[in-house]
C-alpha cells in the first residue's frame, strides 16, 4: 500500500492513505473503483496516473445524457460497408453478409477497447462523470463491469483476459444506482490539507518557489474555511500558483491576490464575499503558513 502511494508520488500524484488504500484494493481485488468528491479534487487524474504507472492504455469514456451503445461500446462503419457493397457489386460477386459484419468494419468504442485490449498491461478504463449518463446506460455498464465481456451479435463475445483497471467518477448530480455501487469500491476524495496540498504543488508546479507555494496553499486553506459557493479545488490551487509564478511574484500580497482572484474563485458572489471579508486576512493567513 505504501508502494501504491510511492508509485503515485513518482507520477506526481500525492494521495493520502485512504485513497492509496482504495487504489491498492481496487488493483488487488480487481474491482472497479468509484470516486466521488468536489469538482477539482483530482478524481479524473487518478485514472491518468494509474495508466502512466501501470503502463496500460488509458481508455476514457466521458458520459453524458443520452450516451448509448453506439458511442460507448461499438458501432459498424457504415460508410465503409456501403463502399464494400458497391465494390462487390461492381465486380459482380455475391454480397456476403458475413464479410460485411467482420472485424474490419467494426469501430471499437471505449468499452470494447477496454475489454478487448491487446497490450501487455491491462488497460485503465476511466468512466468519467457516470452520474451524467442515464439509468439505462448505467444498467448496461453494470453488465459489462460484472463479467468484463462484450457481445457483438454478429461476431461473438469479446472477453478480457485480464480485467481492465476500472475507475468511475461521479459528481453526485444524482445518486448512482445501488447495484452499480455494490460492484465498486468507493472512495470520497476530500480537499487536501495544507501539507498535502503543498506536496501537490511541489510535484505539479516545481518551478514555483517554495515560499510562494506555501503561501498559496495557506491562502487556499483560508479561502476554504470561508463560506463559499464553490471552495477552490486542487486544480484552482495549481492554477493560482502558476499564475503568480508567471507574474514573477515571490510572495503573495493583497493587491496581487485581488488581481488574480479569478483563477481561484469562479463565482462573482464568492469573489465579492472574499473581498468584503478582506483579502488582507487571507494574505495574513497565507503569510503565517509561509
Amino acid at each position: 500500500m505504501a508502494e501504491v502511494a510511492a508509485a503515485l508520488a513518482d507520477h506526481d500524484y500525492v494521495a493520502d492513505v485512504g485513497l492509496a488504500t482504495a487504489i491498492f484494493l481496487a488493483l488487488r481485488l480487481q474491482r472497479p473503483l468509484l470516486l466521488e468528491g468536489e469538482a477539482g479534487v483530482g478524481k479524473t487524474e487518478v485514472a491518468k496516473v494509474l495508466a502512466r504507472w501501470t503502463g496500460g492504455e488509458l481508455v476514457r469514456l466521458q458520459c453524458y445524457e443520452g450516451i448509448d451503445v453506439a458511442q460507448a461500446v461499438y458501432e459498424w462503419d457504415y460508410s465503409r460497408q456501403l463502399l464494400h457493397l458497391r465494390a462487390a457489386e461492381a465486380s459482380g460477386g455475391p454480397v456476403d453478409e458475413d464479410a460485411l459484419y467482420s472485424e474490419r468494419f467494426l469501430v471499437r468504442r471505449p468499452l470494447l477497447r477496454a475489454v478487448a485490449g491487446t497490450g501487455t498491461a491491462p488497460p485503465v478504463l476511466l468512466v468519467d462523470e457516470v452520474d451524467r449518463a442515464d439509468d439505462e446506460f448505467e444498467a448496461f455498464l453494470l453488465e459489462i463491469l460484472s463479467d468484463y465481456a462484450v457481445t457483438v451479435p454478429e461476431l461473438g463475445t469479446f472477453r478480457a483476459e485480464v480485467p481492465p483497471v476500472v475507475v468511475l467518477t461521479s459528481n453526485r448530480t444524482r445518486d448512482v444506482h445501488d447495484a452499480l455501487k455494490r460492484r465498486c469500491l468507493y472512495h470520497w476524495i476530500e480537499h487536501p490539507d495544507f501539507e498535502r496540498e503543498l506536496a501537490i504543488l511541489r510535484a505539479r508546479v516545481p518551478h514555483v518557489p517554495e515560499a510562494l507555494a506555501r503561501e498559496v496553499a495557506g491562502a487556499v486553506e483560508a479561502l476554504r474555511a470561508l463560506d463559499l459557493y464553490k471552495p477552490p479545488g486542487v486544480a484552482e490551487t495549481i492554477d493560482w500558483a502558476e499564475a503568480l509564478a508567471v507574474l514573477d511574484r515571490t510572495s503573495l500580497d493583497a493587491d496581487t491576490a485581488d488581481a488574480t482572484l479569478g483563477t481561484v474563485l469562479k463565482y462573482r458572489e464568492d469573489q465579492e464575499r472574499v473581498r468584503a471579508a478582506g483579502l488582507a486576512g487571507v494574505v495574513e493567513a497565507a503569510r503565517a503558513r509561509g
Partner: protein
Amino acid sequence: MAEPGSGASAPERVVVGFVRALRDAGLRVPVGATLGFGEALAVLDPSQRTDVYWAGRTTLVRRPEDVAEYDRVFARYFDRIERLVPVTTEQHTLRLALDAEDDRDDGPDPDPDGDDGADDTPTLSVRWSPVEVLRTRDFATYSPEEHAEARRLMADLHLAGARRRSRRPRPAPRGRPDVRRTVRRSLRSGGEPVERLHVGPSERPRRIVLLCDVSGSMEPYARALVRFLHAAVVGRNRVEAFALGTRLTRITRELSSRDPDVAVAAAAQRVADWSGGTRIGEGLREFNDRWGVRGMARGAVVVILSDGWDRGEPALLAEQMARLHRIAYRVVWVNPLKATPEYAPLARGMAAALPFVDEFVEGHSIAALEDLVAVIARDGDGRRTGRQTGGRTGARAGVPPREDGRERTGEGAR
C-alpha cells in the same frame, strides 16, 4: 486487530460484528459489501488500525453522508470506548391537524405578519359525491378518512416534466441520414440502398425537483403534500424530493417505496424537524450547494411547496432563489394559502422569493394539484424573455397574483 467480545481472534467474527454494528447504527450495508470487506482485509494488514479503517471505508460506505456515522461506529467498536448500544432512532410520525382552524394560530411560528391563515373555508356540507367534493376541498379541512380517499386520487396524478431535446436521435421521416439503418435495410435488396432512412432529434422529459416545506405553519398541508411527493417519486424515475424545514433533507429514497404508508413513514422518520420552524433561505442554500448547482437543478423544473413563512433573512432567501432561478428551467412556487380570496404575498419570505418565481400556483386541494401537474408539464415558452427582464432586477412591480395561477408575478421585493 483485537476482537471485542470473545478472546478467540477470528477475523470473520470481527467483520460480521462490525457490519452488524454499522447496520444497528442505521447504515445500509448489503451482504456483498460484507464479503468485500473480508476480501479487503485479507489483502491488507488487519493488525493495522488504518488498514482496517480504510478497508471498511472503501467497501462498506457508499455515501459521504455515512462517513461520520462510520467513524463513530468504528471508534466505538474497535476502541471499546463504550459498550455497543444500538443508536435509538426517534420515531417521528406525521400529525394530522384535525381541526385546522385552531391549529393555524398555535403553530410555533413567531412572526404572524399580516398573512393570517383564513384559508380554511369550513365546508361541513353533506357530501353526496365524495370524489367530486374531495377534489376541491382544502386539505386543511380533511378528516383522516378523507386523507385515505385522497390517496387514491393522488395516485392518478401523473407528473411529467416539460420536454427538452435529447441527444439520442430517433428515426424520423426527414433529418440527418441514418446510415446504420440504411445499410441494414439495403441487405434486403442485395446491397442496393433503395430506401434512404433518416434520424431526427427526440425529446425527453426534464427532471423535476420537489422541495416541500414541512414546518409548523404548513402542517395542515404537509401530510397531503408528502403523499403528492410520494405519488410523483413512484410514478417517474426523474423526480427528486426534499423536505424543507429548519434544514434540508433528501427524501427521494425514502419515498420510493411503493407502499405509500411505508414511504411516508420512512420519510417522516428521516426528517428530523417536522413541524419545526422554517429557514427556507438556508434550506435552499444547502440545496443549491450540495445538489442543485452541481447538476440536479440544471435545466430542471423546480417546484417549491411552501406557504412562504420564513424565519430566516429575506435577503438570503432572495439570493438563493436568484441562484436557483439562474440554473433551473422553471421555478414553480406552490402556496396552499394562495387559494384564499384575500391572499396577498405579504409574508416576508414569499415577497422576497416572488421575483424569481416563474409560476405561482395554489396547492390546497387535489384539483389544485391537478393544475400543478399541468403547469409542470407545460413548456415555458415565454420563459426566456422573462428571465432576462423580470428575474434578477425584479423590476416588474406589483402584479397582484391572479386566480388562474398562470402569470408570473414579479414584485420588486429586493
